[in-house]
């Protein structure tokens, strides 16, 4: 029979005077609150077990443990407790002290009923907002983590363990791995697990931005810095203030940019293009590359000092073919993802199709797998993805399974090597110990297609 909004709200009254306890208890019960009263600190601490209390009304002056001391103890038990101090006129100074130590407000006895009602309502409203804020933050954290790395193989677990460990620090992280292994996802995982998670993570693909624009992209520019710069614009380093910056394909940047990079990483300061004022930004750097940076350093195309500055903590992400046990889980993850995005009733993958997916070499790694699943979801007629829904070069492998002829074995081997080498004809030909023309002929003969 609750006819009030307060029936689930609770108030704890702590006061050594019985009349105060009784009148407050009665007053708030009539308002529909759940109310309990304690006459001293020991009783109050015991009643904390019945909590959490939405509001604690606490008398400042009590024999034995004072209200101020008790406030600290109560806060230790429930740091979110909203405490309103009750004082006599004489002890306003200690009320101020209580406020400094985190009390919500104070009232002086006797208190105007209107004031008390509003104070309690405001305190509850603020608590409700704070609780809601906390809940939303948690939801955001969960959501931002939901599309993160999937897999339970030993190797990927180690990657995630490293990511979580390094996330707590501000150390620069370099993520190495083949194209499509999920370097950006790991970078986001590091950010999401760090103290910077409520600030942005800014991703820059250094390889995708033309060299001439990269500078203004990263550092921003002032109005009129160059033709077409009509407005002042903030750069990525500035936008990442408080958060993290993810620099993908760091191996592609020019020697000139490398110098500038190094300076920014070391000083955390820079100027906008066309500007003079130094701008400070507090960011954490996570970078990624699939290039052989060590070789680039030897060749002199990548600065050694920048290499050491970036290569503080390295995480290697294994290619998908080295963690095949994760494929079923990844497949299921992408099926669910695209079923919800495309609103299609496709729910699972047939055992035959799954078998193909697990055996495939995946030169394009998880990205390729995701694309294959997305494509299959479009094609699938039934709630189950079958081999026919998979791309040609994969489903053709099915025929080979029952075909032990020399030609079939040769075809399978060539296809395997090509996939392993990412269809680099020169490398594949070297491994097969045939010349490139012969390889081209065999590719044509077997009808092999680049994925």
């Amino acid at each position, binding site marked *: 029979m609750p006819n009030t909004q307060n029936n689930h709200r609770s108030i704890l009254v702590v006061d050594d005077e019985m*009349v105060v306890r009784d009148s407050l208890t009665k007053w708030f019960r009539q308002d529909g609150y759940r109310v309990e009263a304690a006459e001293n600190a020991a009783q109050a601490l015991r009643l904390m077990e019945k909590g959490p209390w939405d509001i604690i009304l606490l008398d400042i002056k009590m024999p034995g443990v004072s209200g101020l001391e008790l406030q600290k103890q109560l806060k230790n038990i429930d740091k979110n407790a909203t405490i309103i101090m009750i004082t006599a006129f004489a002890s306003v100074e200690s009320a101020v002290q209580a406020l400094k130590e985190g009390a919500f407000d104070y009232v002086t006895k006797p208190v105007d009923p209107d004031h008390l009602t509003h104070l309690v309502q405001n305190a509850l409203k603020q608590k409700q907002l704070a609780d809601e804020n906390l809940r939303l933050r948690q939801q955001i954290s969960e959501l931002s983590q939901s599309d993160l790395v999937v897999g339970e193989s030993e190797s990927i677990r180690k990657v995630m363990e490293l990511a979580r460990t390094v996330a707590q620090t501000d150390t620069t992280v370099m993520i190495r791995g083949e194209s499509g292994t999920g370097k950006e996802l790991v970078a986001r995982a590091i950010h999401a697990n760090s103290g910077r998670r409520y600030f942005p993570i800014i991703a820059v693909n250094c390889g995708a931005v033309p060299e001439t624009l990269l500078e203004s992209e990263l550092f921003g520019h002032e109005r009129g810095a160059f033709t077409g710069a009509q407005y002042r614009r903030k750069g990525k380093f500035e936008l990442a203030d408080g958060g993290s910056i993810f620099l993908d394909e760091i191996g592609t940047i020019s020697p000139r940019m490398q110098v500038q990079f190094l300076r920014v990483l070391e000083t955390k300061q820079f100027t906008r293009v066309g500007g003079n004022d130094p701008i400070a930004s507090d960011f954490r750097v996570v970078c990624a590359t699939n290039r052989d940076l060590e070789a680039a350093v030897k060749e002199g195309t990548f600065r050694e000092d920048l290499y050491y500055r970036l290569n503080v903590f390295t995480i290697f992400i294994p290619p998908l073919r080295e963690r095949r046990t994760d494929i079923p889980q990844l497949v299921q993850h992408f099926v669910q993802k695209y079923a919800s995005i495309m609103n299609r009733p496709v729910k699972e993958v047939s055992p035959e199709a799954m078998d193909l997916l697990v055996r495939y070499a995946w030169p394009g790694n998880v990205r390729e797998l995701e694309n294959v699943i997305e494509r299959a979801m479009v094609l699938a007629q039934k709630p189950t993805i079958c081999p026919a829904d998979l791309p040609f070069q994969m489903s053709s492998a099915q025929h080979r399974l029952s075909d032990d002829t020399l030609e079939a074995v040769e075809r399978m081997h060539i296809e395997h090597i090509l996939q392993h080498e990412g269809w680099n004809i020169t490398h594949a030909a070297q491994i097969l110990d045939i010349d490139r023309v012969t390889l081209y002929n065999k590719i044509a003969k077997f009808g092999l297609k680049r994925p």
Partner: protein
Amino acid sequence: MPSILLVPVPPVDDRLIGELVAPLQSMFRTDVRVHNHDRIDPRTAFDVTRNQYNSTVLISSVLERFGGNAHKVLGITSVDLFVPVLTFVFGEAQFDGTAAMVSTYRLDETLYGFPPNRPLLRERLLKEAVHELGHTYGLIHCRDLDCVMRASTSVEEIDVKGVELCKRCRVQVQEKLCEKGWISSSR
């Protein structure tokens, strides 16, 4: 037959109390009487430092003297009432109990510098009487803007709300009466 006893606690205008009988009778569908002899002396509840009367003490006196005479006892006075932790109260009730107190002191327009307004005073007193009696029937404050059980800490708020119980509060009172066996459950 359930009954409500109205107890004048002097100083108080007896005519005002008389005017409460009919509306309370129809609202609570019960016998309402006024106790007109051996009056309570409010001085026992007087607090010299606050120059006000302790309503909790008055409720105790009313209960002690008249608790056995009716199902509900409402003391009515014109002195300024307080409970220790609050600066004042319009009235006070034993929650889900027998006795309650109301005062006309802060309901009177003259306190706020306006000319006397008897009809308004009568209406405010009726609202507060129903409100405090409502608490004795176990009603808590109601969110309904028109319901007399809505909390009010100023006369303006008393004037805004209605004089009647909302449907839900009325049903609760009925249920309480059935529960106590004072009326049959057929309503």
